[in-house]
């Protein structure tokens, strides 16, 4: 469970100080799917970086399962990311020289899992995203949708508690977008993941349990897109099972 209290993130651009995120208090429950919308440059990615332990807050605290992420040393943050958090990026960020299976394997390297177990988990992850027969293909030999599936398999292979997805369908066509979101939704349901998904797409956001809108570094809640913001920043009911 995430608990953010009075979080602000300031950046210095020359003499100017930019408040990318400010006055953010938020609880994200275990197994919740939160969609975050907002215009470019309004703090969505900064929020995701804070949740993903990629950055520390300038003010306030970010707690994951009761641990103050901002107080951890760099090596502890790295271990936290390796064990608990899976990332899915808009541009996939696959390593171009490695095959689909090897890209998935890259997420298991920090966990020091034995070769046999590693192989089984990679195969299962690729099977879960429907790419068991593409294990040896290089990213350049896969379509955009397939590449994003590999990225999802890479995020899920370590069995994380949290998946943070930054515009996962931003580079995909409409049909592929639906496939990917359908896949994410299925995996979220099956695995009880906590899913935070940043998207511009209102249709995708509507499928989330909760929708937050970032505006000038502040997060407000609504049902999606242009809906009136909700005032209570708390977790909704647990996700439906099955």
């Amino acid at each position: 469970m995430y608990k953010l209290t009075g979080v602000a993130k300031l950046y210095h651009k020359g003499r100017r100080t930019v408040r990318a995120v400010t006055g953010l208090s938020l609880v994200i429950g275990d197994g919740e799917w939160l969609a975050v919308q907002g215009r470019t440059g309004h703090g969505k990615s900064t929020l995701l970086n804070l949740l993903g332990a990629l950055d520390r807050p300038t003010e306030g605290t970010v707690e994951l399962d009761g641990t103050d992420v901002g107080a951890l040393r760099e090596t502890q943050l790295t271990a936290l990311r390796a064990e608990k958090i899976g990332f899915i990026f808009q541009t996939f960020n696959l390593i171009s020289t490695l095959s689909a299976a090897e890209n998935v394997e890259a997420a298991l390297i920090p966990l020091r899992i034995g070769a046999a177990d590693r192989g089984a988990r990679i195969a299962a992850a690729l099977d879960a995203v429907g790419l068991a027969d593409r294990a040896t293909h290089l990213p350049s030999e896969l379509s955009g949708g397939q590449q994003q599936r590999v990225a999802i398999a890479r995020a899920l292979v370590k069995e994380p508690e949290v998946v943070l997805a930054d515009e996962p369908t931003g580079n995909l066509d409409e049909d592929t977008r639906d496939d990917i979101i359908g896949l994410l939704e299925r995996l979220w349901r099956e695995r009880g993941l906590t899913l935070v998904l940043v998207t511009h797409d209102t249709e995708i956001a509507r499928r989330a349990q909760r929708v937050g809108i970032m505006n000038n570094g502040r997060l407000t809640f609504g049902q999606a897109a242009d809906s009136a913001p909700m005032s209570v920043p708390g977790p909704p009911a647990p996700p439906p099972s099955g």
Partner: protein
Amino acid sequence: MFFITYLRRELRRRMRQAIFIALGLALGVGLVVTVSAASAGVKKAEAGVLSGLYGVGTDVTVTGPAVLTGRFGQVKVGGTGDLIANANGAEDCQNGKCEEVPAGQSVQSLGAPYSAFTSAHVAAVARLHGVSAAAGGLLLSDIALTIPRNHGRAGGPKPLPPSPVFFSVDGVDTGHLELGPLSAGTIASGRSLTAADAHSDVAVVDSGYATSNNLKTGSTMTIDEVKFRVIGIVRQPQDGGSPDDIYIPLARAQALELARGSAATGEVDMIYVAAASAADVPAVTREITSLLPRCTVTTAASLASEVTGSVTSAAKLANDLGKWLAVLVLIAAFAVASLLTMAAVARRVREFGALKALGWRTRRIVAQVLGESVAMGIVGAAAGVGLGFAGAAVISAIAPKVSAVIPGSSRAFSQAAGQAAGGAPTGELDPATAPRVVAIPLHPSVTVDVIVLAVLLALLGGLVAGALGSWRIARLSPADALALVA
């Protein structure tokens, strides 16, 4: 395993750049190997010159002042017996009384070209602090002159001085065979002198002299009317130039001199000294100079400093230009490798940011980048060593001969005198100080040390390049890396 797979695939992806970096390192390393090999070859050539002049175990050589000088057209040999050749023929002088050598007759003269030391001098030198051994030697020059039958007559040859037949005889202390000129030689056939030969009429002959005079082990030869049996043929280092022709026991050489009345019992004209250690050589040199102030004291270092000619130019070229050229190329290779690696890292920020997000530690990513650079370094080292061998082979194939100009010295006298008499020099000549030119083939040698150095240099190049690239990765926060992606 993942490390190797990732490394291999990445290097294959940027193969052209990897080859470029490896070739740059290889060029630098190859130059280092070639220059080092050439330098080693030059040093070997220098050492050959010195050991040939000097003897392997000898640290210091003491020579008395030269007693003779020669002029164009004249040959003199020391002692009471002088043989003077001139345009009119030759005069044989004994105890100041000279007789003209009749046409058609031969005369022979044997003598020592240097002032003598007594056995007490040798013993005094041996007792000096820092001296581990001292041995006397007696260098004699034997000159035989045949006046043509029609010399100076109408229709005869032009009235030029007749050419003498010359050979040098070295009296060797058989009790200290580890010192002196014979110690540098290799017995080609027969055997060397031993302590048991001290009073025997036996000789070891230089291989070159033996060939030109058709001498073999078991042959008999005459030195100043005494027959000597050849017991061995010795091959002296080629680099040392003209060696002495004949080596006989010191006691027999002294007996020959004594028989001519030109020396006292037990006299020698050279003292070969071995220092207790290399560090003692300067002190021993000073002590000997103090003990025997009129003598010439020569060490390997002083001899080396007097050797000139292209061997020293080559050494200077290898040490100065070659060394700096190799260093410059290496620095350039390091710089290019570093810049290209940093550029490659800059292009892979997205990749490294993603890996950090996946939970890869910075040091793991750094190790990956360093591994790639070191792999290029290993390829560069292998190619560089190959290039170095090729460079050394080219130098060897071209086989430039370097020359060493050796100043007239104790060991050089006899040969110089021979050249002065038998050759056609012009102008005034002082045989005791006549320089001698020795041509030495240059053979570069690639040693294990150089190969190890080359491999280490290439690896260092790879490490430097990788470290600079890694420095950027280490400073990169995952959020910044991912922000750069957007």
